C-alpha cells in the first residue's frame, strides 16, 4: 500500500500532468467565485477536452478543478455575504460578519489555511481508508442514510433561533418545500400549482442565493455605507492573524475535516449540507461559541471551510468503490472514468490502486496550490469591502441574478429568488434562523426517500440497526437538551409554575401567523394527494404546525422583556444562541428601514421587468447605469466602465461559454431582427 502511494506520487508530479493540474486549479478558482456556476458546470464543459489526455492527467485536471471551487467560493461569501457555491453557505454567517468588522483579510486567510489543512487531512483519511472502503460502504444502507439526515436536521434546527421551537418549525417548513413537485414514487404532483417549473421541485440555487445573498445586499442598501467602514488590520497583519487563528485551532480543523470527509462519502448528502454540519458541530463544541458565533468568530469560518475541502476526498469514495457519485461534480468525474475505460469497483482498490492514489495526490496538491494562490491574494481582496456600496451593489446583484438563473434556466428561478429574498430578509430582521430552513430543504428529499425505502424493505426493524439507534438517540438528545436545560435551570433557582403573562401581540407576530397559514394551506392541499404522496407531507406538516403554534404561544405569553417588566420569569432572560447574522442599523427608524428595503426589492422588480422587455444582458448594462446614477449620482467615468465591463464579462461567461437559453423578450418579439443580439 505504501509502495503504491509512493508510485502514485511520482505519477502525478510529472511535468505535463502537473501543468494540467495547475490549469484545473486556476479554472476552478475562477468558477468558484461566480455564484451558481461553480465547479460542476466547469467540469461538464471541459470534460470533452480530457478525452485526449492520459487518465492520470485527465483526473488531475478535473480533480484540480473540483477540489478548489470550495476554496475560492469563500471570497464572495466573506466579502459580500453571497455564497459562491453551495459549500460556503455557512461561511457567510461569521465570515461576512468579520468583513463587516473590517476583518475580511483575517477571515479569508484563516479560511484558506483551514481549507488546505482540512483538504490535506481529508486526502490523508482517504488514503488510509482505501483498503477498508468497500466493507464500510456496504454497511451504510438506506436506514443509516436516513438516520444521518435526521440527526443533521436536529443538530442545526435547535442550534439556531432565540427559541429552538422556531428552528424546528422552520426546518419542518424547509422539508415541506423540498417535497414540492412530483413525489419520488408515484409521480403525484404536489403543490405545483399547475406549473411545469415546479414539476422537479424548487431548485436549490435560487433558494440559497435568495435566503443568504439577497438579505445581505438588501441590508447593505439600507445602511447605505460600505460593507466595512475601515479595515482593522494592515494587509499583511490581517493575513498573518488569520493564519495564526487557523493554526491555533488545528484540532478543530482536523475534527471538521474528518466530518467533511465522512459525510462527503455518503452518497446523497452533498456539499450543500456538509458546511452546516461542521458549523453546527463547532457551535456546539467550541468554548464560548454561544456568545460569539454569528457575530464574527473566526472559528465559525474555520469549521465549514476545513470541512468542505475535505469533502472532495470523501466524495471520491463511493465514486471509486461503487460507481455511485457522492456529488454532482463526482457524477461528471465518473463520466470521465468510464471514458478512460476505468471501471469503478473492487479493481480500483487492487489492480488500479496506483490510479486511485494518484487521485488522492491530485486532491492534496490542488488544495495546496489553490489555497496558496487565494492566500496570497486575500489581503488585497479584503480592500474591496471598503468600497462604496453603489460601486459594488449593482454588479453583485446582476451576478446573483445570473447565478440564480442557473437553477432551471427559467423565469421561475427569478421569481423564486425574489420570493426567498424577501422571506430571507424578513427572517433575518425578525431573528428567525435561516440555516434550518435550507438544511430542511436539502435533507427533506433524502429523508422522504429513505424513510419509504427503509420501511418498505425492513418494516419497523430498520430502527434496530446499531448505527441507526446511535444516530437517532443523539438526535433526540440534541432536540431535548435546550428544554431540559431550561427545566434544570428553573429547578436550581427554585422557581415554580410556568412563567406566563397575559398575551401581548406585536406586529412582528404576523410573520409567525403567515408561516402557520402557509404550512396550514400546504397541509390542507396535501390531504388531496394519493396515499403514498401525502404520508410524508402530512406528518411533517402537522409536526411543523405544532412547533410553530407552540412557538407562537410562547412568543406572545413569555416575552423576555415583558416578563421582566412585570416580574415573571425571574427577570433575567437566559442567554440564547442565535447562530445567524444580526443586523445593526445604527438607530435607523423602522419606517425608513422598511421603506429602503421596499426600494431595494423594487429595483429587483424593475430588473425583472426590463429583462422581460429587452433581455437579460442589455438589462445588466442599463441596470448598473441606472442604479449607480440614481442611488448615488456616481460620476459617468466610473459608471460606464463598470457597466460595460460587467456586461461584457457576463456576455462572455454566460452567453458564449455556458450558452444559456435566454427567455423570449417583448422586444425580440416586436422586432425579430434584433434577436441576433445576445439574450433578446
Amino acid at each position, binding site marked *: 500500500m505504501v509502495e503504491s502511494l509512493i508510485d502514485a506520487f511520482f505519477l502525478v508530479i510529472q511535468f505535463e500532468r502537473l501543468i494540467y493540474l495547475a490549469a484545473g486549479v486556476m479554472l476552478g478558482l475562477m468558477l468558484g467565485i461566480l455564484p451558481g456556476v461553480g465547479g*460542476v*458546470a466547469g*467540469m*461538464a*464543459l471541459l*470534460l*470533452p477536452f480530457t*478525452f*485526449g489526455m492520459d487518465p492520470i492527467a485527465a483526473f488531475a485536471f478535473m480533480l484540480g478543478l473540483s477540489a478548489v471551487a470550495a476554496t475560492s467560493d469563500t471570497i464572495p461569501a466573506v466579502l459580500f455575504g453571497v455564497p459562491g457555491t453551495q459549500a460556503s453557505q455557512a461561511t457567510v454567517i461569521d465570515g461576512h460578519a468579520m468583513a463587516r468588522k473590517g476583518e475580511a483579510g483575517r477571515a479569508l486567510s484563516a479560511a484558506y489555511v483551514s481549507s488546505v489543512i482540512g483538504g490535506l487531512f481529508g486526502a490523508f483519511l482517504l488514503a488510509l481508508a482505501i483498503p477498508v472502503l468497500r466493507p464500510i*460502504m*456496504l*454497511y451504510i*444502507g*438506506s436506514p443509516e442514510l436516513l438516520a444521518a439526515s435526521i440527526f443533521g436536521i436536529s443538530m442545526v434546527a435547535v442550534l439556531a433561533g432565540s427559541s429552538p421551537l422556531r428552528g424546528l418549525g422552520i426546518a419542518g417548513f424547509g422539508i415541506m418545500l423540498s417535497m414540492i413537485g*412530483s413525489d*419520488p*414514487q*408515484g*409521480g403525484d*404532483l404536489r403543490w405545483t400549482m399547475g406549473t*411545469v*417549473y415546479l*414539476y*422537479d421541485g424548487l431548485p436549490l440555487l435560487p433558494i440559497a442565493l435568495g435566503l443568504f445573498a439577497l438579505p445581505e445586499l438588501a441590508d447593505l442598501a439600507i445602511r447605505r455605507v460600505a460593507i466595512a467602514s475601515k479595515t482593522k488590520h494592515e494587509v499583511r497583519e490581517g493575513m498573518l492573524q488569520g493564519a495564526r487563528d487557523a493554526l491555533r485551532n488545528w484540532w478543530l480543523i482536523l475534527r471538521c475535516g474528518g466530518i467533511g470527509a465522512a459525510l462527503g462519502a455518503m*452518497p*446523497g448528502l452533498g456539499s450543500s449540507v456538509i458546511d452546516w454540519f461542521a458549523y453546527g458541530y463547532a457551535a456546539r463544541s467550541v468554548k464560548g461559541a454561544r456568545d460569539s458565533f454569528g457575530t464574527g468568530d473566526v472559528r465559525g469560518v474555520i469549521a465549514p471551510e476545513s470541512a468542505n475541502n475535505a469533502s472532495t476526498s470523501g466524495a471520491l469514495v*463511493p465514486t471509486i468503490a*461503487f*460507481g*455511485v*457519485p457522492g456529488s*454532482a461534480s463526482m*457524477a*461528471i468525474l465518473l*463520466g470521465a472514468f*468510464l*471514458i478512460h*475505460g476505468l*471501471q*469503478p*469497483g*473492487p479493481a480500483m482498490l487492487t489492480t488500479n490502486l496506483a490510479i486511485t492514489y494518484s487521485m488522492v495526490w491530485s486532491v492534496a496538491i490542488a488544495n495546496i496550490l489553490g489555497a496558496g494562490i487565494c492566500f496570497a491574494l486575500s489581503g488585497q481582496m479584503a480592500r474591496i469591502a471598503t468600497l462604496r456600496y453603489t460601486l459594488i451593489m449593482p454588479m453583485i446583484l446582476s451576478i446573483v441574478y445570473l447565478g440564480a438563473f442557473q437553477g*432551471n*434556466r*427559467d423565469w421561475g428561478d427569478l421569481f423564486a429568488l425574489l420570493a426567498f429574498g424577501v422571506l430571507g430578509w424578513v427572517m433575518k430582521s425578525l431573528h428567525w434562523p435561516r440555516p434550518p430552513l435550507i438544511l430542511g430543504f436539502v435533507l427533506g428529499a433524502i429523508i422522504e*426517500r*429513505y424513510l*419509504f*425505502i427503509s420501511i*418498505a*424493505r425492513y418494516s419497523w426493524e430498520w430502527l434496530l440497526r446499531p448505527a441507526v439507534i446511535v444516530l437517532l438517540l443523539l438526535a433526540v438528545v440534541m432536540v431535548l437538551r435546550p428544554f431540559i436545560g431550561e427545566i434544570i435551570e428553573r429547578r436550581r433557582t427554585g422557581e415554580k409554575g410556568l412563567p406566563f403573562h397575559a398575551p401581548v401581540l406585536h406586529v412582528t407576530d404576523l410573520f409567525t401567523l403567515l408561516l402557520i397559514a402557509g404550512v396550514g394551506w400546504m397541509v390542507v392541499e396535501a390531504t388531496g394527494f394519493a396515499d403514498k404522496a401525502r404520508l410524508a407531507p402530512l406528518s411533517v406538516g402537522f409536526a411543523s404546525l405544532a412547533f410553530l403554534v407552540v412557538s407562537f404561544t410562547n412568543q406572545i405569553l413569555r416575552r423576555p422583556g415583558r416578563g421582566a417588566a412585570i416580574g415573571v420569569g425571574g427577570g433575567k432572560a437566559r442567554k440564547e444562541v442565535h447562530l445567524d447574522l444580526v443586523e445593526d442599523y445604527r438607530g435607523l427608524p423602522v419606517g425608513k428601514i422598511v421603506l429602503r428595503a421596499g426600494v431595494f426589492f423594487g429595483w429587483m422588480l424593475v430588473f425583472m421587468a426590463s429583462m422581460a422587455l*429587452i433581455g437579460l444582458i442589455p438589462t445588466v448594462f*442599463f441596470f448598473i447605469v441606472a442604479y449607480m446614477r440614481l442611488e448615488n449620482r456616481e460620476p459617468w467615468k466610473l459608471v460606464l466602465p463598470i457597466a460595460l465591463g460587467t456586461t461584457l464579462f457576463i456576455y462572455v461567461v454566460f452567453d458564449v461559454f455556458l*450558452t444559456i*437559453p435566454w427567455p423570449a423578450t417583448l*422586444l425580440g418579439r416586436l*422586432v425579430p*431582427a*434584433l434577436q*441576433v443580439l445576445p439574450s433578446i
Partner: protein
Amino acid sequence: MSVIKVLKSLAVVAAVAVPASAQAQSVEEFYAGKTVSLYIGYSVGGGYDTYARVIASHLGKHIPGNPTIVPTNMPGAGSLRLANWLYEAAPKDGTAIGTVARAAPFEPLLENEAASFNAAEFNYIGNANTEYSLCAANADAGIANIDDLRSKELLVGGTGAASDPNKQANIANAALGTNMTIIDGYPGGNDITLAMERGEVMGRCGWSWSTIKATKWDMIEQGQVNLLLQFANTPHPDLADVPLVAELADTDEQRAMLNFIVAPQEMGRPYIAPPGVPQDRVDALRQAFMDTMADPEFLAAATEAGLEITPSSGETLQEIVASVFATDPAIIAKVIEATN
C-alpha cells in the same frame, strides 16, 4: 432615451437588411451563416448531454449551408419541459432542435398532465443508439430464469413510477406474470445497483446493457448477477441467450402492453424538431444526421468518448411513434393501471 433611439434605428436597419423573401430560399441559403441551437432536456454531464455534445460538434458540416450548432441545456421535468417548449414556443424554422427522454413522446398517452404536446406532430430527426434494457437479479437470490421469476418473489429497486426500472417491473408483472416487488424511491439507477451489492434489494429492471458494460462489467464476469429479461425488439449481439420479453408473452394483448416499454428503447436518445418546420429542412436535417453517423471523424470522437453508435433514421422513429399511438385504448388503460 438616446439609447432606445439607437436601438430603434438599429432595428430598422436590421429589418431592412434581412431579405423578406423566405419562400424561394433553398435549404442551403437558409442555413448559411446561421446558428442552430441543439437543446438538451437534461443538465450537463449525463448520457443525453454527452451524446448531444459530441453530435453537435460534427452535425453542422453535414447540413447544407454549414450552420454552427450550439448545444444548450434546458433541463426540467425529466425533459418534458423541453418537449413542451419545442412543441409550443420554439422557432419553427429549423434553427431549434432538441433531444428528449426516450419515453417522453409516449407520456401524453399515459395521461401525464405535465406533457402538453402531441408527440405524433414532432419531426423526428434520428437517434444515435438503440438501448437494450434488462431485468437482472443477484446470483444469490436463486432466480436464474423466467420460471423462477414467476414462482419466487424478487425485491427490485425503483426510481419512481414513471421511470424505466418501475415501468418495466410493473409491466412484466402484469403481462408476464412475474413476481417482482418494487422497493421504490431510490434517487437513481446507480443507487439501486449499490443497494443490490449490499443486499438491500436483490434485483432491478431498466438496466441498460451499455451502462452495465461500462460500469459493472466485473459483476457480470464474476457471475454475481443473472440477466433475466431483455426489453428490445431484436436481441443485442452480446445477449443472444437472454429472452426477449415479447417471446415470453402468450397473447397479442400482452405483447401490445410490452410494446409500450420496448418502443422507447428503440427510440434510444431521440433528436426531434418542432412541428411545422418546412419539409425540405426536415429532410435535410434527417439526411445530415445519418451522414454524421457515418462520418469517420464523428465515429472516432464517439469511440473516444465511449459512446455506442447504432443509429436509426428519423423516418424509423416516426413509424415507432405512430405504431404506439395506434394502440387500442383498452390496452393503454391497462398499461396505465399497471404502472401507477
